[in-house]
């Protein structure tokens, strides 16, 4: 049987295409200013504080100009050389990178266990992991301080790295377990059939597929450790071991503040985070959405 398909009637040029009632307009039907105006306003609100920081950092002390001209880098020189920001920066990099590595490694192991094994208290364990997110770090300061003091780890960067890692782990493990669940178990089984043991199968088959998740978790751990003030303040005493957030706070005294130096310090503190986000933005968004939705 041959079915003839009647040609579709040509749309009359003068008659505009009607959108079914209740449907959203298509992208190309929306006037451009409906999109760009709110975005521009939002961008303005976001960027003005950054401009203000740049302005204070780059204009000479005492200037009231609204543009950073004549431009000076004196404030940067002051905080870097006179206020030991070079040392703080180095310490923050150490703490950030070590936290990133430790958090990612432990979260990977824990996340794998949560995703691939069934054990009796798994649900309770997951709930406990979630509950730890409601405990503020300040609440645990004294016990942590006592533990590190007894381990003779006060005034050591390791204490900050451990504390940061411990606080990052619950969320990181939950996220990573979500990613691992998304990787079909049959892939691992196939690798086992080909002669791999569990670890090799994980390393060769699963790990490469976890890249967005690892980047998301790692960057989150790095940025959090980079910005966190409390543990560094409490566990580190030696000025040569303090980190950038503590250094920034020392620029504000009880009744005097050098705004130029503070702004320059703020930029030095923000640059690594901005660079990290610029490079990993794509992975970060993919990572968080995948881990969150399908976890």
């Amino acid at each position, binding site marked *: 049987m041959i079915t003839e398909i009647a040609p579709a009637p040509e749309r009359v040029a003068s008659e505009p295409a009607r959108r079914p009632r209740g449907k959203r307009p298509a992208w190309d039907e929306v006037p451009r200013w409906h999109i760009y105006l709110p975005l521009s306003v939002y961008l303005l609100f976001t960027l003005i504080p950054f401009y203000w920081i740049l302005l204070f950092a780059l204009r000479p*002390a*005492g200037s*009231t100009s609204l543009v950073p001209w004549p431009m000076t880098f004196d404030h940067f020189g002051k905080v870097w050389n006179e*206020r030991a920001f070079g040392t703080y920066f180095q310490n923050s990099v150490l703490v950030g990178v070590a936290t990133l590595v430790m958090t990612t490694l432990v979260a990977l192991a824990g996340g794998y266990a949560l995703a691939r094994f069934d*054990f009796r208290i798994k649900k309770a364990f997951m709930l406990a992991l979630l509950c730890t997110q409601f405990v503020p770090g300040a609440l645990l*300061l*004294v*016990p942590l*301080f*006592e*533990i590190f*003091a*007894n*381990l003779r780890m*006060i005034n050591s960067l390791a204490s900050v790295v451990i504390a940061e890692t411990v606080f990052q782990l619950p969320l990181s493990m939950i996220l990573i377990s979500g990613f691992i669940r998304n990787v079909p178990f049959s892939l691992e089984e196939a690798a086992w059939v080909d002669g791999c043991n569990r670890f090799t199968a994980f390393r060769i088959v699963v790990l490469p597929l976890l890249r967005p998740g690892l980047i998301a978790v790692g960057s989150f751990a790095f940025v959090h450790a980079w910005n966190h003030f409390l543990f560094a*303040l*409490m566990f580190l*005493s*030696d*000025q040569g071991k303090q980190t950038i957030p*503590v*250094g920034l*706070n*020392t*620029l*504000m*005294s*009880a*009744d*005097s*503040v*050098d*705004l130029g130096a503070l702004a320059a310090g703020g930029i030095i503190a923000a640059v690594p985070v901005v660079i990290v986000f610029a490079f990993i933005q794509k992975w970060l968004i993919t990572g968080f959405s995948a881990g969150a939705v399908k976890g």
Partner: protein
Amino acid sequence: MKTSIRRNRRAAVAVALGSVLALTATACGDDGSGSAGDKGNEGSGKGEITFWDNNGGVRTDIWKQIISDFEKKYPNIKVNYVGIPAASAQSKYDTAIQGGGLPDVGGVGTAMLAEVAVQGALEPLDGRLAKSPLNGKLSQNLVQSSKAAGGGDQLYQIPTSSNNGTLWYRTDLFKKAGLDAPTTWDKFYTAADKLTDKGKNRFGFTIRGGEGSIAPALDAAYSQSGITSFWNGDRTTVNDPKNVAALEKYVALYKKDTPSADVNNDFTKMVAQWDSGTIGMLSHNLGSYQDHLKALGADKFRGLPNPTQADGTRVQISNPVDGLSLFKSSKNKAAAWKFVEFALSQEENSKFNQSAGQIPANTDAAEDAWIQKAEPTKLAAEALNGAGTKIVQLPYYLPDWNTISKADNEPNFQKVLLGKMSAKDFLNTLADQLNKAQADWKQNH
């Protein structure tokens, strides 16, 4: 296979539990060394001591210089300097009091002295001071303030410096407007009105409406009302009708002669705004002198003690006194006390206060040449030590003072500025809380 997995699991649980117990045991097994419960000892007067600077960063250089001088004089004592950001000093002390790791000696301002002392962390210093060459060399006003701030029975802090409320004003703007220096409250209000031109974004005054607003508001109230004591028996005078009237007049300046954003002003915003704008007057303290100097240059501003009444009567609230305290848990109190004595010597105390722009506690240091040249400090010292000056002692000794004067009442002061609460209701609420805190304190003393 299953048995093996189960065995491994049990082993893992055992290791985990063992680790937790080991950590807990090591944490609990400590004798509390360096915490508030530790009584410490005199030590040999040699070796290492740790010094915490409660205003780290800005004062780091000058303290390192003093430490270097000290180590030259006492080569067998080494001082480990720890700079703590001013805003976090109290939490760092509180954590160390509970968790251990207190220093031998540290900077403790009067604003936090009571809270640290009440936890039993500080060594009483009356006996040491009586036997010290410093005895009689320190400003008695400041020693009394230190004693009062610690609870009144014992001296827990040796004062190093005092700050003082200062009215900074723009000499160029005053000259242009043909105004007299704002030495009295009448002149102050006249200048605030005359210098305001909202159309041109010019204002006569900037008021502190955000963090830290209570002390300046009380200073303005007592200074205008002329009431000279914070307590009348066991009741505070803070809500006396004269103070209410004075505060009403002061807060009426908001928006009339001040920017409307002042409702959120902490000292940082207030100072930055005054240094970069065209505002006639700013009420702060001596601590921002260097900021004004950098921003405006020496010839565009002056700093006077806060205004007097028309007849010249000067009433002002007590300002925080900076000082050094010895910690009970120190294992080397003899060396730590040597450091306190050295830091308070004429030469070192003078050096420190010249750098900090504050008034030296050492009376000989207060006579040094630099003070005569630093006009705001000189005038503040004269006002503070002047025979006619009446100081209203704020109750820094109340352990709840910080909570009452910050978290509890700063939002209320903002309501007063915004017209959502009357000055009378604000002061009545404050008075109720203070009366209760005073009654509690008395019960325990």
